[in-house]
């Protein structure tokens, strides 16, 4: 690390973690502003928020200021402790996801050896928060929404994890830096011009990961848990003010994190041909920008699907996961394994 010479270990650590703390809300804001406010509006032939700032660019600041001033309410019969903790659990899960995502050879809070596996483990905690919210609200819509969400999240966690296995077979490493390096140093039919982004060999894995991500974020067309026409807002129905904002931050922060993970695993991460994989100031400066562009590309796909398809019914949703995605993912792993071992 170039700057690390003068800084003690713990100073660097605090700086890195604080940077992540700033990045999470910023990334969420970028996602919401770009896709939810503007892209969705233009796809539906309307303008979206326009009043606050130029072209509505400051709308989120206004929203944030509004949310902070809203009264925090809990239903009379709610279990207040669990009710309060639930959004915190969801938020924690999102924050921890960002720790392992590398944006340059040294621009990462911590490159764990089990990187991607850690991300999967941490993201599975959010189910807990959603079940807690659904139960503690003492509201029948909330309970039903919580149960639906949990049933959906666990059903789609399997294809998510299985899609990752294919990438790990190719890279032979769980560390996200290692996965980026494997793609940068790979070659397509012996031509190492652009490295080998795993999307070429793991296209099925990429598609599975995107679909499963969509469901993990409870976004349309997989939004049965918060289906507003029947459950009002599902497990979020009793939350107000900042606590509601926490759920929002958790959801769209996770949308950014999962897009970044997909970009890292399938599109080569922060690496583009010409950069030095092993370090260097230029890689560290350009890397974050490259990763950001790729992440937004993946996020665009996710939100495009979100705005296009109508909601799936609960049974269609479960059938799709169990009878189509999971068998497909297993076949993909088997095919990848056979190819890697035999050739």
């Amino acid at each position: 690390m170039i700057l690390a010479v003068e800084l003690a270990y713990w100073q660097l650590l605090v700086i890195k973690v604080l940077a992540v703390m700033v990045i999470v809300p910023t990334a969420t804001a970028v996602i919401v502003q770009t896709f939810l406010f503007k892209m969705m509006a233009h796809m539906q032939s309307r303008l979206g928020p326009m009043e606050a700032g130029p072209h509505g660019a400051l709308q989120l600041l206004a929203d944030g200021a509004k949310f902070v001033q809203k009264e925090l309410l809990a239903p009379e019969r709610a279990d207040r402790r669990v009710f309060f903790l639930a959004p915190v659990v969801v938020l924690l899960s999102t924050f921890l996801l960002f720790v392992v995502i590398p944006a340059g050879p040294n621009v990462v809070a911590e490159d764990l050896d089990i990187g991607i596996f850690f991300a999967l483990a941490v993201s599975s905690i959010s189910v807990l928060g959603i079940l807690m919210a659904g139960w503690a609200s003492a509201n029948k819509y909330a309970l039903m929404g919580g149960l639906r969400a949990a049933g959906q999240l666990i059903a789609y966690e399997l294809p998510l994890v299985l899609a990752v296995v294919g990438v790990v077979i190719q890279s032979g490493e769980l560390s996200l830096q290692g996965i980026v390096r494997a793609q940068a140093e790979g070659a397509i039919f012996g031509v190492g011009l652009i490295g080998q982004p795993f999307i070429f060999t793991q296209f099925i894995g990429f598609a599975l990961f995107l679909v499963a991500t969509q469901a993990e974020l409870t976004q349309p067309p997989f939004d049965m848990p918060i289906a507003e026409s029947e459950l009002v807002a599902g497990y979020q129905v009793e939350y107000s003010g900042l606590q509601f904002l926490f759920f929002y931050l958790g959801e769209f922060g996770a949308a950014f994190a999962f897009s970044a993970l997909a970009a890292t695993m399938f599109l080569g991460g922060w690496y583009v041909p010409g950069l030095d994989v092993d370090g260097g100031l230029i890689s560290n400066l350009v890397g974050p920008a490259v990763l950001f562009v790729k992440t937004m590309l993946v996020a665009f796909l996710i939100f495009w699907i979100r705005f296009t398809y109508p909601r799936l019914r609960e049974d269609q949703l479960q059938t799709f996961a169990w009878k189509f995605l999971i068998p497909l993912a297993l076949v993909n792993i088997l095919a990848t394994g056979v190819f890697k071992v035999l050739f």
Partner: protein
Amino acid sequence: MDQYLPIVVMFVLAVGFVVLSIVTSKLLAPGRPTPAKEAPYESGIVPTSEPARRFPVRFYLVAMIFIVFDIEIIFLFPWAVVHRELGAFGLWAIVAFIVPFFLSFLWEVAEGGLEWGPVSRSRPLTDEHRTTTSTVRLVGMDGREPSEPAVRDRPAEEKTNEKEEVVT
């Protein structure tokens, strides 16, 4: 292990962030709860009964199968990491591990263990005695050839068959 220090710091800072923002909100936001605000929000309808206490057992089945699958998948990761050193032997070992399990999963799907939604009734939607000839009264047919209704029956009958296939 010091790799995990950032995780701990992150954990602490995230909790701090939550506490700080809640405190800010408490200072800025009004705190005037009323019975109406504290009532469960059920689209303006005052809840008269307790929340439903019985849910389909299918949900629980999904959770159980999920655990079994999850454990199965966990074992794929160590293999994926070392598969280069293990070569064909590792592939056979993992295939032997996955295949019996996957076959039983297929058996379960075939048995209808993961069928969702209402059980489709085997009752045909139409009665074979009720056709267009028996239900539709043709007017203005006096003096015409009687073969015409028979021709019109055909498509109706085919439709009936199709429906039955879908249902059963």
